């Protein structure tokens, strides 16, 4: 049975690759040269790393059988705390380093709070992270009274807009995060324990795993990934806001489901996330470009996209369900 499961999951990877290429080809046909233009390709490379990091964070929690709905709030709070340091007119190189460490520290602390609530206080992941989502967003609002914090040193903006040897810096950060997570999940004992915890929590307890400590680590790490995404967001937009990018949550869940992450826990791969986030970015950019199309252009707006993401999420779930029927 395990072999069949492995086979179905390997073929899932091939299917996903086909979907990604299919979306790419479709968008090229629909949009012509506009989609393949250097400008569009470059802008896609700057856009998808943040969503990719959010999706990695969601995947990590899903693998352990939980979910982290607070990632966007964590990213914004971390981004804001860095922004408050950076926006001082006297901000120097030291300030940039301080701000980055502050943001990472804040995001890990928020993640530890989630992990404590779930592991030690006994809250279910959904309610715990819904609560912290609201709490942290409220704190971010209170910190700034709802205003945006903008204007950072050039050196910091490189993190969002710069390139290193023609490769966008945010892409490099995402790839680094993806590789580290891939190694962690597939080559370390911690990774195997996380997926055991997600596959069967009762068995994990009887196997002597420190479930509480694992949960603490999971949510701290997903908070950290969200914090890194928050840094990239504020560097790219040169501003920080308490309620930036709330639609990313649905998209991150969609990427995770498209990537074949099991919503009931136990399985998820970094490769899947990589392909899924690419296909979603192709789709999103392609839809944006369709606004210039004469016939369908007037019907394409943010609400059409919201509708599309919702419909896609349900569709992907139905297809998964048809593929591997869970006995549960």
């Amino acid at each position, binding site marked *: 049975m395990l072999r069949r499961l492995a086979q179905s999951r390997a073929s899932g990877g091939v299917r996903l690759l086909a979907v990604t290429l299919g979306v790419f080809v479709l968008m090229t046909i629909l949009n012509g040269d506009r989609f393949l233009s250097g400008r569009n390709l470059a802008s896609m490379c700057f856009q998808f790393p943040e969503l990719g990091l959010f999706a990695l964070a969601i995947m990590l929690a899903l693998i352990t059988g939980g*979910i982290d709905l607070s990632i966007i709030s964590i990213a914004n709070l971390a981004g804001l705390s860095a922004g408050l340091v950076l926006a001082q007119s006297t901000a120097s190189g030291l300030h940039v380093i301080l701000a980055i460490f502050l943001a990472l520290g804040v995001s890990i602390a928020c993640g530890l709070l989630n992990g404590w*609530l779930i592991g030690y*206080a*006994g*809250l*279910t992941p*959904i*309610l*715990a992270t*819904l*609560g*912290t*989502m*609201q*709490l*942290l*967003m*409220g*704190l971010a*609002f*209170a910190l700034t*009274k*709802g205003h945006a914090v903008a204007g950072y040193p050039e050196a910091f903006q490189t993190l969002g807009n710069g390139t290193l040897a023609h490769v966008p810096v945010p892409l490099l950060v995402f790839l680094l995060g993806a590789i580290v997570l891939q190694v962690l999940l597939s080559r370390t004992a911690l990774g195997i324990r996380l997926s055991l915890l997600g596959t069967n929590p009762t068995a994990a307890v009887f196997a002597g795993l420190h479930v509480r400590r694992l949960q603490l680590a999971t949510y701290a790490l997903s908070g950290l990934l969200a914090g890194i995404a928050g840094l990239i967001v504020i560097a790219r937009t040169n501003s920080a806001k*308490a309620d930036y990018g709330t639609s990313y*949550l*649905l998209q991150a*869940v*969609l990427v995770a*489901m498209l990537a074949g992450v099991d*919503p*009931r826990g136990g399985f998820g791969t970094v490769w899947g996330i990589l392909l899924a986030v690419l296909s979603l970015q192709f789709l999103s950019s392609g839809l944006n470009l369709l606004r210039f199309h004469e016939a369908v252009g007037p*019907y394409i*707006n943010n*609400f*059409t*996209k*919201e*509708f*599309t*993401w*919702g*419909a896609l*999420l*349900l569709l992907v*779930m*139905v297809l998964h*369900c048809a593929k591997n029927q*869970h006995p*549960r």
Partner: protein
Amino acid sequence: MRALLHRHEFYLAALTLALSAGIALANPAFCSVANLFDLCQGSTVMGLFALGVLIVLVSGGIDVSFAAIGAFSMYVTSKVLLGLDFQGSAAVALVLGGAIGTLLGLFNAFFIGFLRLPTLIVTLGSASLFRGFLLAFIGTAIVNTLPAGMVRFSKLTLWEMRLADGTIAGLPASFLLLVVAALLVGCVLQGTMLGRGIYALGGNPVAAARAGFNLRGRQLFIYGGTGLLSGLAGVVHACMMRNANPFDLVGMELNVLAAVVLGGAGITGGRGTVLGTLLGVGLIVTINNSLILLDVPSYWQKVVVGAVILVSTGITARTGWARARGAGLC
């Protein structure tokens, strides 16, 4: 176990009273009849949503699409009745809104009951689907003149009172709708096999299936019923606001959820009562109302609501553990 539940609601009521007394001392305006009626009015829409969420939480699921369903039903109902130039009673608007809500709820039930997909992810997706469809294909413009029946309904009061300054404060008729809905949901949950089956499903789905409960039928009822209540809430909201704004309602999900978990329902299922939920709604509305009366900036409401969710779920989890330990289960 019954005594414990009673205790929970007793403490909740005591907390509400203590908070009200404290606020009344700080700002006497809180105790005025007008403000009391305001609190009832403010509780109506949230209460209708909360009853729906209660049913879902008791069954061990979660629904984050109810606000989108409410907005959808509200806007489509107003548009359709205006398009027909309908002059009749608001009852038709309530029936139509309820019917649209029920259909959207059954849409959720299909994915949850028949395909057995996780409730959170299904309702996350459907919320975005409903809202996107509404705003992309139906309209984004606020309807400022509602159908005549809905306007008449909005002016209808159960009880009126002339205040010292000559103005009239009234308890809106829609409050009666909340009372009736609460009684109905309470009777179904406590007094029928259908309702007991929902508790059984939430407590342990496998055991419920072995005990012979038809779980698919239950899921259809749970999500259809939640849709119905959400549709009604949407229409009532439009009547109160005297307009139909398609951007309204979405965003209040967490306030409603906070009220329901405060009332003692847990997502782990099998727990929760109508009385607790109504007290939870009362407390959340009182807190938000008093924060306004005390001139606290609105973003602190988010912090408070987030904290309420965490603390009350934490307490419910603790008592759940203690009970399980008492019964020798862990």
